[in-house]
């Protein structure tokens, strides 16, 4: 499990200065449990950023999206399907935000044929010896 901590709004504003289009992307697993980046926190942070941008005349355009599970390719793709309908710019942003630093190969997937079989085979071997 990943443990995360929320950044303060002034710190976020400093990071985002000079940018106009911002996508806040949350995830429904680890960061939801530690109350740092789930759907609710995404909504609160987006509101806070909008308020800060209007007060400081930064003109941020903030979009929100929370995917069900970013470390699962199948579910991640399903979450992005809705975003893809909006336009090519958003699709590119989502692809970059979603795939960078995430595991998107299927070799670790527990339902993949042979993954658990191999483990069971090794277990049987250990038991027999």
């Amino acid at each position, binding site marked *: 499990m990943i443990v995360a901590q929320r950044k303060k709004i002034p710190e976020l504003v400093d990071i985002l200065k000079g940018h106009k289009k911002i996508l806040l992307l949350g995830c429904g697993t680890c960061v939801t449990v530690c109350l740092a980046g789930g759907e609710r926190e995404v*909504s*609160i942070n987006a*509101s*806070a950023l909008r*308020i800060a941008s*209007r*007060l400081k005349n930064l003109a941020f355009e903030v979009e929100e999206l929370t995917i069900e599970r970013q470390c699962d390719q199948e579910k991640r793709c399903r979450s992005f399907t809705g975003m893809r309908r909006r336009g090519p710019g958003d699709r590119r942003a989502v692809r970059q935000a979603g795939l960078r630093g995430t595991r998107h190969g299927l070799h670790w997937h527990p339902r993949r044929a042979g993954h658990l079989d191999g483990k069971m085979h090794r277990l049987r071997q250990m038991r027999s010896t």
Partner: protein
Amino acid sequence: MTNENYEPLLIAFCCQYCSYSAADLAGSMRLQYPPNVRIIRTPCTGRLEVEFFMKAFEKGADGILVAGCLEGGCHFTEGNLLAKGRVGYTRKFLSESGLEEERIRMINISAAQARPLVDHINEMLDTLKNLGPSPLKSTNPSQNAEMRL
């Protein structure tokens, strides 16, 4: 908008078991409070989320009053205590974002306390008048349409 003719828009989230009844009782007792307060009935103040408060400010509300039951008297045991924490959390977010944290306040009222409710509303409106209009309020009135009755 000049400060002389400025009338703050106050959103009051009232719990249906206590403060909403208190507001009803205030009407029965013919106690008067200013018309620029919008009372929203909630099943319990524990239902209110931080997002609701942030959205209300984004849409142009000048202030928010959360009116819950007396501590220990919540119909759902601890809903008002949850709301108290969330209001505190919202205040922190508002001050981080650059908005005054005095714009949101939580009060505890029983169903029989009509007069204290009216006093709290008047006090909150005075605070908002001193703070001035919310900088998030749009200068174009049509964009604040959601806030009209």
